[in-house]
């Protein structure tokens, strides 16, 4: 059996021996290592760099979120008291005011607006959109397909630097004072606020540039799936993770250009006052909303599909069962990608004609179907599976629970008459946190736990992993469930002040955010501990059947595989194939035959 590197040594005229080392092996000096990482075209290193960056941004966005919650612990009020004809005006309940950031009620409100805007922008454009595809996706796609890299490795590095470049503008905008437009940049406010200042332009520019990064990653993945599957791997032999990424990439490529031109025109509008969004000049501000949501609704599926992609893997591996209805799950990814483009109007029920609203309402119900197909299939997979309740599996169960709540409340909002009451209340805030955080972020953390041994070659501590899960799960529900109740009772979003009836809900929510913080800290220290002192990971600690586990070391070598893998079994054929739990360096299923013969390998214990 000739190895890849064996064939190439000499042929390329340079020594390939170093490609047989784990990809994490440092270079001779610190400086050389830094240069190596900064210029790497290895999809694994790029994935790890993205992971670090995204988690760092998650931390920044999280700090902003905690600030918002602390501000809401008490309503911000102006209290006027008249004693002996002398009037004193006092501001109460504002943290921003009491730490001296704000001088009066108006500036306390300004700070509040800027901080929730910063939170939203960071979490959407810098965290969730790139999170799973750019980090785990980059790392895993080629491994799962049995390839050496993504189709265009240099382009991949370029999208990483474009991401950094875009983030730079976002951070710069925040540092010079921040913007208060909300993450949605609705016109006409976004074109007139802070007139004459560059902050808003910087922020829009950041979103515009990050869009390019997103397009290039998506494009790369689509071509990778088409052209780099291992011999023997047909479309329906691909792991469902890959299918999810494929659907995500399609949306990224097709929806992002539209937001690109919209943001560009928004910048023109601010800089040159061209007038398309300005009613004084005959423009139409609602047009911006249409264009914004034509992108941003599909993009919510850019956020959730990768979470679903991870879910299929978690459930299959930790139930040791074939995913129920593989094709249904695969096609529902594409169905979601398609329907996602025709429902944007449900964000504008209050600002469009009645007929349009009714049509969009009906279409919105349609989009819940493929999501439900997936949820039902995962639940059916649990049935009679041998469930192994490790941390990633807990996260998978958490996803099922939270995403179902998020998706079903989406239907409440999609119902026209109900939405007229719920629109712009905390009910919407709770809905999208249940899907975005309870769905995507929860799946992301589960995925990080599952592939941690593969990425870094170390095991994490199971006890602390599960402790972290429970803190996150409880903290999450404590934070966001009260927001549903507040929303139904009419608490509007984006205000620093509220009437006393809402006090208890806001306080529960704020306490919940601290529990969440604690959960994330537990995970963080668990991971740091694992890197420093965790036990060495075997190639296939979970006994999974996809190629990154069966054919690659933990961590993988620079070229991914010693031998080009040949696919001989489906990704979830747990009924026929039992991979042994292996020791470091051993592989239970060496690729032997062409075609699709099934190897039956005895369990190692």
């Amino acid at each position, binding site marked *: *059996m*000739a*190895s*890849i590197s*064996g*064939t*190439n040594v*000499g*042929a*390329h*005229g340079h020594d390939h021996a170093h490609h047989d080392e784990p990809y994490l092996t440092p270079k001779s000096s610190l400086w050389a290592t830094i240069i190596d990482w900064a210029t790497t075209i290895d999809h694994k290193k790029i994935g790890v760099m993205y992971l670090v960056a995204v988690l760092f941004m998650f931390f920044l966005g999280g700090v902003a979120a905690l600030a918002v919650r602390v501000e809401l612990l008490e309503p911000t009020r102006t209290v006027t008291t008249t004693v002996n004809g002398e009037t004193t005006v006092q501001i109460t309940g504002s943290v921003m005011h009491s730490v001296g950031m704000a001088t009066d009620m108006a500036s306390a409100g300004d700070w509040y607006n800027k901080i929730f805007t910063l939170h939203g922008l960071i979490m959407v454009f810098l965290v969730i959109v790139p999170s799973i595809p750019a980090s785990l996706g980059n790392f895993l796609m*080629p491994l799962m397909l049995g*390839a*050496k*890299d993504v*189709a*265009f*490795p240099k*382009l991949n590095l370029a999208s990483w630097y474009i991401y950094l470049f875009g983030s730079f503008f976002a951070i710069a905008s925040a540092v010079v004072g921040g913007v208060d437009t909300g993450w949605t940049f609705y016109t006409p406010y976004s074109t007139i606020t802070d007139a004459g200042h560059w902050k808003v332009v910087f922020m829009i520019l950041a979103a515009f540039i990050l869009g390019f990064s997103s*397009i290039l990653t998506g*494009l*790369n993945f*689509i*071509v990778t799936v*088409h*052209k*780099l599957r291992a*011999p023997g791997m047909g479309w329906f032999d691909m792991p469902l993770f890959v299918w999810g990424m494929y659907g995500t990439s399609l949306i990224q*490529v*097709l929806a*992002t*250009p*539209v937001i*690109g*031109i*919209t943001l*560009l*025109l928004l910048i*023109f*509008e601010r800089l*040159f*006052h*061209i*007038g*398309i969004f*300005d009613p004084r*000049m*005959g*423009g*139409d501000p609602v*047009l911006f909303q249409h*264009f914004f949501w034509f992108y941003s609704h599909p993009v919510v599926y850019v956020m959730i599909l990768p979470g679903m992609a991870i879910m299929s893997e978690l459930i299959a591996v930790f139930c040791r069962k074939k995913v129920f209805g593989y094709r249904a799950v695969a096609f529902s990814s594409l169905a979601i990608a398609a329907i996602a483009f025709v429902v944007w109007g449900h964000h504008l029920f209050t600002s469009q004609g009645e007929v349009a609203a009714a049509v969009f309402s009906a279409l919105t119900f349609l989009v819940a179907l493929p999501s439900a197909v997936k949820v039902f299939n995962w639940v059916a997979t649990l049935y009679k599976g041998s469930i192994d309740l490790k941390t990633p599996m807990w996260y998978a169960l958490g996803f099922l629970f939270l995403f179902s709540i998020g998706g079903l409340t989406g239907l409440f909002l999609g119902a026209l008459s109900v939405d007229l009451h719920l629109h712009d209340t905390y009910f919407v805030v709770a809905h999208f946190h249940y899907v975005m955080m309870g769905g995507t972020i929860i799946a992301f953390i589960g995925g990080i736990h599952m592939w941690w041994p593969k990425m870094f070659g170390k095991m994490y501590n199971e006890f602390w992993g599960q402790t972290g899960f429970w803190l996150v799960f409880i903290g999450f529900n404590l934070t966001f469930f009260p927001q549903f109740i507040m929303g139904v009772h009419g608490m509007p979003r984006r205000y620093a002040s509220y009437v006393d009836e809402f006090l208890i809900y806001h306080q529960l929510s704020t306490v919940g955010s601290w529990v969440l913080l604690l959960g994330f800290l537990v995970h963080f220290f668990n991971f740091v501990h694992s890197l420093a002192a965790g036990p060495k990971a075997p190639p296939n600690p979970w006994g999974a059947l996809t190629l990154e586990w069966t054919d690659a070391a933990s961590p993988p070598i620079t070229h991914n595989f010693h*031998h*080009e893998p*040949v696919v001989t079994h489906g990704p979830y054929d747990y009924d026929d194939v039992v991979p042994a739990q292996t020791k470091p360096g051993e592989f239970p299923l060496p*690729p032997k035959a062409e075609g699709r013969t099934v190897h039956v390998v005895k369990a190692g214990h």
Partner: protein
Amino acid sequence: MTSFPVENSGLGAAADRPYHETYRQAEHFRTQADEFDAVKLGVWLFLATEILLFSGLFVFYGIMRMLHPEAFIHGSSLLDWRWGLLNTLVLLYSSYTVASAVRCAQVGDQKGLQRNILITFVMGLLFLVIKFVFEYAPKYAEGKLPGFWYSYPNWESPYEPLWWGMYWGATGVHASHVIIGMGLFVWLYIRARKLHFGPKHYNAVEGVGLYWHIVDVVWIFLFPMLYLIH
């Protein structure tokens, strides 16, 4: 026994040799055909994003026109269609030369390849010169500027500033694509001089060529939309 084909590797880079000996296939593709198809697919996907971007722009145009037809009709009558037509012809000719460049690469005609890339570049430059000297400059001088900056006195509809916003916005975005295209031609020319292209390796030429066609097609739409429809 499985291994990657190595037919294209193992030759030292030597600029004075014919193209195919300096060309090395990227390692992670199994065959050269795979690499070829992959690049092609990538380019087409990228072009799809370009088409979508301009489609967004056209929709904006359509809606604005629907809202204020009189402003758009009068505004458009102030444009000189002859410059627009000349630029259309310039771009059409450049489309022909860039297609010839691809053809030359395919048959290994290195001289023709270099010549055609150069002509296409010059055509792009000509387009911009016409645009800036005969269209943008006089309009700038007369105050036919977008939105807020508008100061042209002889307007007929109060919404004409909006029309000029659309005009500058659309042609500006298009012109920036022309400039990027010219940058790509410089890159192609340098590579062509180093004999990087030939019958089996003309991906880059073809990709840039396709991009250039899209830039032309967009103009083919912009020309009637801005200059002709009354």
